[in-house]
């Protein structure tokens, strides 16, 4: 059980600010250690499995993601089609494998981009009071929109598509990481050794790079895992509302949507994609939990 699991509001309500001072090497190891054992290991295995499936998808998939197979209309799982076929005669297993890739892009591209942008903005603005106030209000503003409202609004500008999902996720992560880094900056700046280094002439960049960033790495790592699992949800929700990938291309969210629509006629349909989503989210959650735990230990 950890403190860092309020999934949707990733800023942990209890101060998780960094322990001041330089990171001791053994603490880095403890994070890695957490990922090699117990819950963390399970999480890593789950995520790695999904990633491998997604990366190797095109090699493993028996059919193309949009290939319509003559006569194979909504077949149940069987030898030819392990997960069955959909109402447009497409192989669900192949679609799931390709669908994972969309989520991988969202998880491993959009989230890091948003995180990097947030960290950068947070670092830069929090040093001076004026920019800090402005940035904080801007972050507040972005956080004030529920994710899906932001999604609907951005879709009005950009049209539905993977890119839109990515932009929404970047926009969501910037304030989250911005605020997290800001907390670190404010804490570290009060530290005697930082004040000392400033006295001997260290500029803001040096302090940010040498003291603040290393100190924020741990909470950032935990947050990254949490944000990634949120991103999987957002992709699913947006595809579910018709704001995500455009048909006929599959994503896990759109596959679940189709499967659930046909749950009466084809109860097997949603099982595969749903299992992948749950595995991915679960894996990321377990990783974030074990990291957070190791950090506090």
């Amino acid at each position, binding site marked *: 059980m950890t403190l860092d699991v*309020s999934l949707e509001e990733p800023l942990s309500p209890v101060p998780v600010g960094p322990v001041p001072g330089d990171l001791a090497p053994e603490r880095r190891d403890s994070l890695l250690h957490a990922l090699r054992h117990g819950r963390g290991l399970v999480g890593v295995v789950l995520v790695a499995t999904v990633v491998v499936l997604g990366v190797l998808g095109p090699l493993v998939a028996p059919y193309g993601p949009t290939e319509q197979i003559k006569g194979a209309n909504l077949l149940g799982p069987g030898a030819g089609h392990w997960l069955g076929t959909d109402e447009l005669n497409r192989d669900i297993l192949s679609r799931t494998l390709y669908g994972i890739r969309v989520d991988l892009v969202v998880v491993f591209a959009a989230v890091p981009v948003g995180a990097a942008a947030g960290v950068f903005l947070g670092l830069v603005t929090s040093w001076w009071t004026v920019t800090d106030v402005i940035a904080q209000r801007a972050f507040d503003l972005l956080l004030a929109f529920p994710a899906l409202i932001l999604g609907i609004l951005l879709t009005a500008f950009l049209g539905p598509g993977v890119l839109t999902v990515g932009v929404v996720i970047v926009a969501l992560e910037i304030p989250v990481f911005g605020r997290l880094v800001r907390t670190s900056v404010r804490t570290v700046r009060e530290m005697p050794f930082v004040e000392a280094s400033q006295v001997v002439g260290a500029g803001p960049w040096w302090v940010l790079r040498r003291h603040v960033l290393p100190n924020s790495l741990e909470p950032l790592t935990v947050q990254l895992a949490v944000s990634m699992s949120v991103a999987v949800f957002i992709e699913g929700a947006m595809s579910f509302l018709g704001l995500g990938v455009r048909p006929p291309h599959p994503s896990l969210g759109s596959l679940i949507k189709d499967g659930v629509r046909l749950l009466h006629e084809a109860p097997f349909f949603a099982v595969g994609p*749903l299992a992948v989503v749950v595995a991915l989210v679960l894996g990321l959650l377990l990783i974030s939990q074990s990291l957070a735990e190791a950090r506090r230990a």
Partner: protein
Amino acid sequence: MTRYLLSRLGSALLVTALASIGIFALIRLVPGDPVTVLAGPDATPAARDAIRAQLGLDQPFWSQYVHWLGDLARFDLGPSYKLGGDVGSLIADGALNTVVLTLFALVLAAVGAIVTSTAAVVGDRRWLNSLLSGLNTAAVAVPTFATALVLVLVFAVRFPVLPAGGTPPAGFFAQPDIALQYLLLPGIALALPAWAALTRFLTEALRTQMRQPYVTTARALGIPRRRIVLTQALRNALPSTVTVLGLQLGTLLGGAILVEAVFAWPGLGRLVEQGISARDYPVVQVLLLLSVVVFVVTQLATDVIHAWLDPRVRLNGVS
């Protein structure tokens, strides 16, 4: 305390004011012209201009904005462009449905969290902890739309014991027992992730309390564990939990969009969707502003409650 509250209030007002300008500008940047939507594709330029003037869209931006603020202040939001009816009543109708659903989910989540986490700490059995932890993780790892649909299929279609969606025909207050049944499935779907987050947090907070010296003292005095949890630890653990509860409210409102879509629940989420696709400026800008106001107010309220419950904040003004 007063100074702390005043500064919080000031920044809340600032965010709201900035948001109102941002939203007003943003909505006008959305591609697609409401005049075209309203006038129809075959309208003459003169007819378009007439409609534009009638809507005040020919005025400069700041004049439109000030005008809008005036309307907001008077609670006279005028007619919607496209969805029909008065903006105020559209939003009021939707808001009632969304608020009832969200509050219901919040209560479910909060009560559920208190019950499960005290059970976990009081019971403190390995199997109980694993069970709760498993349930908890499942509640977080399964997407809301999937739980919502599975609930419909199980409890409304396969075993039809609860309604599949829609709002109670007689309203929420005429027949509360019927209304409760309509609320139950969407409420559960919406509450599950919030319940999970709250449970985790509260359990952890309770555990922290149980490690405090006063608990050791109490145990030494022979006071049973259960009683310590229920009387002392819970009370001390609640303040920080209230903060999480406040944060969850925003999440719930966001999740309501999905749940409303699945359960054909005519709330604000559906209104936002329809409003944006129909380019109905008056409806959308008020809704967006509303979402900002709700967020700001919950944050403010959370801070206030937190300050009120936590003497350190109350006295020193640190958060």
